[in-house]
């Protein structure tokens, strides 16, 4: 089965990369863009009897840093 895990900065954490992308978009004329937040996506292929537990654990322990990031995941069966 395949899992998709998204990791993104917490709302209260400044995202300098997102800010820079937003400014570039404004320069290009996309002035309706109000905010850009940059994140990461991981696609994991695994065979496990309890994939929810494993994916949650991987996302929490390794793929995200709980000080600055949140995550969400879904399993595509």
């Amino acid at each position, binding site marked *: 089965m395949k899992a998709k895990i998204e990791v993104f900065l917490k709302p*209260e*954490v*400044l995202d*300098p*990369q997102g800010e*820079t992308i937003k400014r570039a978009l404004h320069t290009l004329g996309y002035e309706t863009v109000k905010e850009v937040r940059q994140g990461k996506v991981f696609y994991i292929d695994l065979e496990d009897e309890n994939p929810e537990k494993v994916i949650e654990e991987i996302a929490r322990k*390794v*793929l995200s*840093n709980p*000080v*600055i990031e949140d995550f969400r995941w879904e399993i595509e069966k």
Partner: protein
Amino acid sequence: MGNRKVRFGVVVFPGTNCDRDTYHVIQDVAGEEVVYLWHGERDLKGSRVVVLPGGFSYGDYLRSGAIARFSPIMEAVREFAEEGGLVLGICNGFQILLEAGLLPGAMLRNRGLRFICRFEDLVVENDETPFTLLYQRGERIRMPIAHIDGNYFAEPRALAELEGRRGVVFRYLKNPNGSLNDIAGIINPRGNVMGLMPHPERASEAELGSTDGLRMFLSAARYVRES
């Protein structure tokens, strides 16, 4: 212990690149004993001070320091720290200590998104740590920085706790990277694990423009000899 040399251990991960400079300064300038500690090992080889040097461990993939913290050697470093052993993280080594949870907070990308490599002026905020015994509180020193992820972040409560216990050891005089409260280096509550973004090993010989970093290694050695 008298004048016996203090043994330092310099940890080497794949992608570490300041290990040789650090080794050289400890051995040839500070005049202490030093050994390399390979990331795949669990033996600290009798080191009294463990240094996690700068570089790009595991290519800084995922997040700076994120993969290195799962290395076998880090289990030994964690146990050593829990027993009160001295651990110094420089630049990428600091990032690894943050990822490992041995120090509070996290690093964000620099405010200006640039990799910054230049000398910075710092203020010594705490001269009562094992790593800063030979500095004076309020003293201004110069050391180079070389990083893109040095923008220190901690949530408000953690930051207040850090400041309240005088956990900030060095601050930038002119904030180069957006770091909260101009933080350049911090220490844990027990006072045996310190991390900083500037490179003391690159500021330990007059030929390189500053010798302000040398006292950090000398301080740690003196602390171990006198304890």
